[in-house]
């Protein structure tokens, strides 16, 4: 067995520390070592976007990184979206606009959307397409996802105003 390396990082505000092989991917680390299985694995080569998480404020593919590369990072995953007050507005919008069918790709879409809407409050359609253009959904045909992101933006604007 290869030498183990210590990885210390924060996920959804909680600190974790584990010893892992250097070859372990970040998504396997989240799922297998930390039990955070909401981040899904669709292709393991960076195309489908199912494993999208937010690392230090930026959406990244957790299948294309090694866990050791995330040492010291601050990560956010789908498990961190809903809180004591209920679902995140992005989650709520995806439900209301039927932005999902099987739901396997959904955590990745949600995290891409969260990154977008935390950076801009009123994205145009082109910005939305740009933000989620790296996420594959095989069920919906994207129309309801586009509407979900637009509704999510509205909800977040309304939330900021209140």
């Amino acid at each position, binding site marked *: *067995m290869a030498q183990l390396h210590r990885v210390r990082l924060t996920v959804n505000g909680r600190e974790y520390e584990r010893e892992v*092989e250097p*070859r*372990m991917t970040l998504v396997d680390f989240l*799922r297998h070592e930390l039990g955070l*299985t*909401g*981040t*899904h*694995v*669709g*292709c*393991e*080569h960076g*195309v*489908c976007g*199912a494993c999208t998480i937010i690392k230090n404020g930026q959406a990244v593919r957790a299948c294309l990184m090694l866990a050791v590369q995330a040492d010291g990072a601050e990560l956010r*995953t*789908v*498990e961190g*979206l*809903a809180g004591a007050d209920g*679902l995140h507005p992005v*989650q709520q919008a*995806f*439900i*209301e606009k*039927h932005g*999902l*069918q*099987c*739901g*396997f*790709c*959904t*955590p990745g879409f*949600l995290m891409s959307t969260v990154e977008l809407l935390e950076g801009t409050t009123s994205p145009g359609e082109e910005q939305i*397409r740009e933000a*989620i*253009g*790296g*996420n*594959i*959904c*095989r*069920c*919906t*045909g*994207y*129309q*309801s*996802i*586009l509407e979900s992101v637009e509704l999510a933006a509205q909800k977040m604007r309304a939330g900021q105003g209140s």
Partner: protein
Amino acid sequence: MTNAIPTSFDALPTTQRRFIGREVDRIEDRSLVTGHAPFIDNFTLPDMLHCAILRSPHPHARIVGIDTSRAEALPGVAAVLTGEDMQRWCNPTATAPEGWGPYSLAVGKARFVGEPVAAVAATSRYIAEDACELIDVEYELLPPVADATTALDLATPLLFEENGSNLIVGRNFVWGDVEGVFAAADRVFNAKFRWNRVGANPTETFGCVCQWDLIEDRLTCHGSYQTPSFMGLGRAHVLRLPANRINIVSHPQGGGFGGKGGPRGTDIASLLSRKSGGRPVKYIEDRVEYLLAGGGQSWDRYYEAWLAVRADGTVTGLRVQLLDDQGAGAEGYGTISVAKPLAAFTGCYRIEAAEYDVKVVCTNRAPSYPYRGYGPPPHNLVLESMMDLAARELGVDPAEFRRRNYIRPEQFPYTIPSGNEYDSGNYEATLDKALELAGYAELRAQQQRARAEGRLVGIGIASTIEPGVFDWNAYATVGVPGVGVPEGISIGINLLGEITARVGFNLQGQGQYTVVAQLLADWFGVEMGAVRVVYTDTDHAPPHFGQGGSRLGVSISGAALGACQRITVKLRRAASVLLQAPFEQVELMDGVLRVKDMPQAQIPLAQVVGAMLARSDLLPEGMQPDASATSVWTAPGRTAPDEMGRCKSYLTAANACHVVLVEVDADTGKTEILKYVIADDCGTRLNPSNVEGMIQGGVAQGVGAALLEQYVYTDEAQPLVSTFMDYLVPTINEVPMTQKAALVTPSPFAPLGAKGCGEGAIHTTPAVLIAAINDALSPLGVQVRETPASPHRVWSLIRSARGDRASV
């Protein structure tokens, strides 16, 4: 006592329908948007091992020897499985015509790149994959059969030597006086087509966790199983266990669309569990494995077609020759996709005679499996392209040409030459709706202006049938053992009036749990939140089939209505005692049991059930304290196929018309979709948002098949596609945002008048996109007859056309 299952909303015991037929939030979604849904890779068992599979790098090779000793010596490895174990413990699969099914690991020889040759169970997937690299396999290479067109040549090697040929199925179906109509035709049109292999590619690949209980000789398989009872029966045959000792536990699936390669993976994980002393073994297929050898590759086809047309534009005959490449055997029910077009062979048209000449062959490509639509999408491309070819040659507008040939509303139910009966429809209304929504006249004007500027702009129109609610007889013509497709539900009401419904299928994305909740909430007059829909495994579930064949929404509604009727009889009997009224006078309406014409004489449902379950002294003599019922639905009136395969197979015939505007870039061959409209008539819509989702999702997959996706093989049968960088699944930037209109011609035969709609637009989108591209290219005198119409393929056509002109 059996009551007829209602075919309209009017028969529901409610004066104010609140849920069914309306847009509601799905009850499935909270677990999905929070990442809590128990997809199979999120599931673990104590002491679980992980499986990795060693696959053949050769398309056709004899296995001379396998040395597993180095792998077995690796720390963490618990078991290694090879073809020898298969021969000792297993039968070949029974999902293929007899003699054409392989073992789950190669025995004797490998027949395609990616075929499992050996497998390892170890304490982690990482170690299992390390161990696979330590297995030494000695191969003797055999010449491959690379393409269907050479599969039947005498000099071609055989995949299954004992069968003496690579021909799996050869059949010639003749329906009506084909020779007569072609002889009498004023014009006969002819063209050849090539549909290249595409596939399902759900975002979740297949996975399972299997545990062989060596004490009780039982097997439990958790997995992303689409049709759990079928999986159980198949495993019983392959693994030589009684079917009632196998428990199939289906988990929510990250999409399905047909095959997920479940049988082989399940057999391998199960046998590794058996070999490692009964420890649970997880196998999660990765994307490369899925793309090389997974269960979703479909429709590798060569077609030639002829259309007989009278001078007045009446189409009288259709002949189709199909050479279908199943790949390395027919393990995945792939032959059925050749037979399914019989359910709608002549599409929307009054074509009186037809012929279907079929040759299904095997090659050293990966085996073919079901994929959404299951055969008709390529067939529809051929039929609709032939209609366009005839219209263009006759100088008739393609919309008008179709209009002349549609089956008319008063002709339903209508039996087509290939035997199936269409339940209802109004195809002209669907066409008109689509033309209106598209602004067809203006589109033609726009096209004229664009052409005057030298731009390649085209309009496509396609009219198709979606056969819905498939049944056992649909595949009785292609040598596959027929198994029935019942769908059951068990519904119970507790003494607080809350309802639990147990079904035998898990989530896959179509939203059937929501439909059940909508229906039960309206039937019993409760909120949707008072209804829970619960998955039950094959040890506990009523007879079931699950998703597949555009049928589950209809069939689970039929089952639910049957159970509701039975429970209602029980409630009325109990209420007749409580209300002291004759049974015949007591009815359920809006959540209360009441005496007809006596508004004050009523009791809420919950009180009746409470009395039934808590106060035996109040029950009528002999009545059991039971407010539950199980009901199993299957389509009425199905018939056995005759010698030409004719039968009533699919219960419903939905109809759609798509109209699109595209522009082809003459310099790059790239197609841009400028406008896309859809008129769709799938009868009653039980949940309009679900239906729209099915349609739009089908558009996306149709765009992929028409423009992007292809499993590419070399002349040596080596696959060139193994990642999503090679297999191009559409993103948001390739899929058009469509305008949709709903028409409703209810089915007179199906529960609530709803028609199967789950396969949606994939029946239509490839045909309409190719039609539009061909319309754009028509001034150049070239036509696309091969899918996908990739930029390179279209650019080559344009270049050949211009080259031809330049050389004149």
